[in-house]
């Protein structure tokens, strides 16, 4: 039996091992860095999503409430205009405009809620979410003065919570009333702020 030994590869082998170790560790480090980058990317996407939907909710609620105030003022103006009946048609036209504005905002929010649960909005399939808050506005039937303002059915919640997440990443926002009234007659406006996700609160209560 012929057994031949050649020592030419004996020096290259440790070098090859060193290169292999470096390459493997590089791939590992790159993988971890990429994982962090993906986590941050996911978090920013969720933040943008929750942020934009919260601001939309706040804006629509503020628009509806502002329109409600306008409707109340217009109805008072219509009562006062009985002394000058020629003013009643433009006032009623203004009233109708405010009603249309409110209905459009309510319809748009319903559509947004539908998009939210069907992942047609800013969420992606695989994300989990809490349902978007409902706008529980109802309108009483018209009276002789015209359409009535919207009324919130049930107790008005102290705040509205919007939350979504993917895996371990979560983003949450609250929409609540400002503590100060800016105008004397106006209701305090709604404002949005980032908040602790309920997922974390549940975990904190668990332990």
């Amino acid at each position: 039996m012929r057994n031949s030994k050649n020592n030419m590869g004996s020096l290259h082998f440790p070098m090859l091992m060193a290169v292999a170790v470096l390459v493997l560790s590089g791939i590992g480090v790159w993988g971890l860095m990429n994982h962090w980058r993906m986590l941050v990317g996911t978090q920013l996407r969720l933040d943008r999503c929750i942020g934009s939907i919260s601001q939309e909710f706040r804006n629509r609620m503020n628009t509806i409430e502002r329109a409600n105030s306008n409707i109340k003022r217009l109805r008072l103006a219509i009562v006062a205009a009985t002394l000058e009946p020629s003013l009643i048609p433009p006032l009623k036209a203004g009233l109708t405009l405010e009603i249309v504005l409110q209905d459009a905002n309510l319809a748009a929010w319903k559509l947004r809620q539908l998009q939210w649960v069907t992942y047609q909005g800013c969420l992606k399939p695989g994300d989990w979410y809490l349902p978007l808050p409902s706008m529980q506005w109802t309108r009483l039937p018209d009276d002789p003065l015209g359409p009535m303002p919207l009324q919130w059915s049930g107790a008005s919640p102290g705040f509205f919570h919007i939350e979504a997440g993917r895996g371990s990443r979560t983003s949450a926002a609250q929409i609540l009333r400002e503590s100060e009234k800016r105008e004397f007659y106006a209701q305090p406006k709604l404002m949005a702020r980032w908040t602790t996700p309920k997922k974390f609160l549940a975990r904190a209560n668990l332990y």
Partner: protein
Amino acid sequence: MSSLIVVKTGESGQSLLEFAVSLLVIVPVLIAAAGLLGGEWRRTRCAYRLFETARAQLNRTRPMLQNSFVQIQETSEDLRAQLHCGNISEQIRFPKLEYAQF
């Protein structure tokens, strides 16, 4: 059963030469690669720690990563955080939701 071992003499110099040439090429490449990778690693880790800590502060949750010497400056409009990791300095700015632009 007999075995025949053939050792070619006079090739140890060739092997040493190859080893030296390999070292000349590979060692600088390895050092450069390790330095580049290490630098990026430290920068990424620093940025990630800062991101997590600042975000936890913004959400009023407990920071996930302790022992982070993060300087946080909160204004009415945003939250700015800075972290020094050696010679690396990372900064981040999170706008509060009322002032955020999407």
